[in-house]
């Protein structure tokens, strides 16, 4: 069996989780396994998936980007405003530029001022969120540009454009992370920043690029949301950052940095998407949906932390000493 595939199946327990949820839903809901519904799921997941892809790079670096939701909303508003007077392509370019710019600022804050990314991006999140409201005066900004709307509403070969975008981003960034020198730098820097520096890796530049990528993808996700609604909403991205981070972690990427992959992230995003979809199909009480979702996240991560975790949970004895596996970042947020 192809070793790559084997790794995915053995190491990536998130896949099992996805299958599990999928099977359950297929059994209890006739609609779930219809192509149209699955396309819905993919469509609904695309935004989270884009945000999570960028977030994966940042998190493997041992950083975090809480601002993606705000960047999404901010660049969406600006794009919409630009589109009022400018051709589609200009709007797109400006939007992407804004996203990249926000990422650049985050990257500079984290590298040059050595702020913890958690607080730096928390601050930019608040700032960009406010600016989006200020620019739009709190009002949604309508987008009438037909070509732009197609980004969210058209289909190619029966598949919605956002899904195609998700696929492209997945493949490209997947290769970037797994197969290029930049990707190796990302892992190395996240695994041991000091060593990376001493090995001559341009640690700061690597981090800055990762944040820029995260910002770019947030802007792209903003296009999708805006195009689907034909409107840019200043608050469109609120809360999406946590969704994206959850997807990344469910996918097995470690917050301690140095380990993770993009396949896991996509799977994680789909787990969340499928659960949402399922709960709606089954008309689960809206109040309980958060409960279910939280439960699924817990369960998925437990599963990823492999069976021992379960035993540990119910057994007296503490889990195997971390020494057994080197730098096991599961232990805690920080030192692993």
């Amino acid at each position, binding site marked *: 069996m192809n070793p790559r595939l084997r790794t995915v199946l053995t190491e990536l327990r998130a896949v099992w989780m996805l299958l599990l949820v999928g099977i359950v839903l297929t059994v209890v809901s006739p609609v779930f396994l219809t192509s149209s519904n699955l396309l819905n799921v993919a469509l609904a997941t695309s935004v989270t998936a884009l945000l999570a892809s960028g977030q994966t790079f940042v998190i493997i670096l041992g950083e975090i980007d809480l601002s993606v939701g705000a960047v999404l909303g901010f660049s969406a508003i600006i794009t919409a405003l630009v589109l009022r007077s400018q051709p589609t392509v200009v709007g797109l370019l400006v939007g992407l530029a804004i996203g990249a710019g926000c990422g650049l600022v985050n990257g500079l804050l984290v590298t040059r001022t050595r702020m913890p990314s958690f607080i730096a991006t928390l601050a930019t999140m608040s700032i960009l969120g406010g600016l989006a409201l200020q620019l739009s005066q709190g009002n949604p900004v309508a987008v009438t540009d037909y070509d732009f709307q197609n980004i969210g509403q058209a289909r190619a070969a029966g598949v919605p454009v956002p899904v195609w975008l998700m696929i492209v981003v997945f493949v490209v960034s997947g290769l970037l992370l797994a197969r290029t*020198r930049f990707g190796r730098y990302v892992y190395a820097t996240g*695994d*041991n920043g000091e*060593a990376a520096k*001493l090995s001559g890796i341009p640690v700061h530049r690597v981090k800055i690029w990762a944040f820029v990528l995260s910002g770019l993808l947030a802007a792209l996700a903003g296009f999708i949301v805006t195009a689907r609604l034909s409107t840019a909403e200043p608050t469109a991205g609120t809360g999406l950052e946590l969704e994206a981070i959850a997807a990344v972690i469910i996918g097995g990427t470690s917050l301690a940095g140095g380990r993770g992959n993009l396949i896991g992230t996509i799977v994680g995003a789909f787990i969340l998407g499928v659960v949402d979809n399922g709960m709606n199909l089954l008309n689960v009480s809206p109040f309980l949906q958060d409960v279910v979702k939280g439960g699924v996240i817990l369960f998925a991560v437990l599963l990823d932390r492999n069976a021992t975790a379960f035993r540990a949970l119910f057994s007296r004895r503490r889990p195997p000493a971390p020494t057994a596996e*080197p730098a096991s970042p599961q232990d805690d947020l920080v030192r692993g």
Partner: protein
Amino acid sequence: MRLHVNGVVKRFGDNTVLDGVDLEVGAGEVVALVGENGAGKSTLTRVISGAYRPDGGGLAIDGDPVSFRHPDDAMAHGIQVIYQEFRQNLFPNLSVAENLFVREEGRRFGKTLVAKAKMAEETTKLLSGMGMHIDPRAKVGRLRVAEQQLVEIAKAMTHRLKLLILDEPTAALDGQESEELFRQVRRLRADGVAIVYITHRLDEVFALADRVVVLRDGIVALSGRTTELEAPGLVAAMVGRTVDNLFPKQGNGREEIALSVRGLGRAGVFTGIDFDVHAGEILGLGGVLGSGRGDVLRALFGLDRVDAGTVTAAGKPALARSPAAAIRAGIAYLTPDRQAEGLCVGRPVRENLTLAALAGYTGPLGFVRRRKEKQAVAELVEQLHVRAASTEVVVSTLSGGNQQKALFGKWLLTEPTVLLLEEPTRGVDVGAKAEIYRLMNELTARGVAIVLVSSDLPELVEMSDRVLVLRQGRIAAHLHGGEVTQEAVLHHALEAAS
């Protein structure tokens, strides 16, 4: 190439660590850099590697001055460093191959996309060339200390190598592995690489080096050809006084048994370990790295679970399920990995020293008795000659050797009846070593039983009253009195191999 270090000055705050150091090393030459803990050896290393920028003086290569802004610049000149805490410079979650080629810039493994298979091949070639056979896809964090050390060296060789600096490379190796390392060093020298070799082991100095440079208090105290120097002279230059007897061994063994181990076993690591340690006695555990010596200690300290066996300390059952329990039973364990397991390097020296004995410094409502604590710490620092700006500075600012002394001090405060020592003098200078040995004597004189695991054979042999040799997790030999010789230990440790 020829590297000149000209009057380099380096300060940390108002602590002048390097005060105008000159050093010269040329192609195909090995220069040994020795000196007390805190003399500034590693700091000098970091200046040469571009990790630190000197506050004065400078470097010159083949006559023309160079200034390195960061490690990249030094590497561009073919300068590679294996740092003292070398494990901090590996990527535990990355594969061996990725560690070796992490900085591979060329198109060697494909233009845009990296050909991992090719990378693995190259790695296997390179390692087997060094007599190493490990899976290039294995995560480095899973390798043994020695293997990691060699990976680090292999990594240096993937670059165009002109100058290699090794900072105490054998600190974590046992005799056999050291030999392997020496082979590599000699090979590189033959290939015309310039080598700076930092060590606290004089035998290595005379075995490897063409010239020696002794640092003391940030200046060059002595420099000359090894052929023209004698060990005592070197030691005197290093510590500023003559150390008459390096191993001041006393026999303090008593009748009563402090620790008694019967049939101790841990699946896959060791089995059927039986021994008694008498109060005031030093029992050595010999064996090659991976023989399970360390694991026996870890098990006795409650870090690893055992599958079989009984342990009694001072007559009471003492099979610890956790370090806390072990400490309560009067057992202390000095880990060989002070950075990862030994010290909270971000906390002050004081807090580290009292950490394991804090109960003794706690008053009502769990409040810590500050005055009592400060006093005890002051005395200890005095007794161990720990070199630190103050007891309030964070441990990470101490030199390797002084960190080791601090770690030792932490366990003294718990006033143990059984002291498990693993590599107690790793990275400690001769002067400090002598102090630690004297300390061991004091303790045994007070009736403390010591179990000693050490890859430093002379140390093991000279300091132990008896030696148990482990091989593949079993007791291979029990050496008494006259039988306790380096040859005997090696023989029993390696028998399987030979």
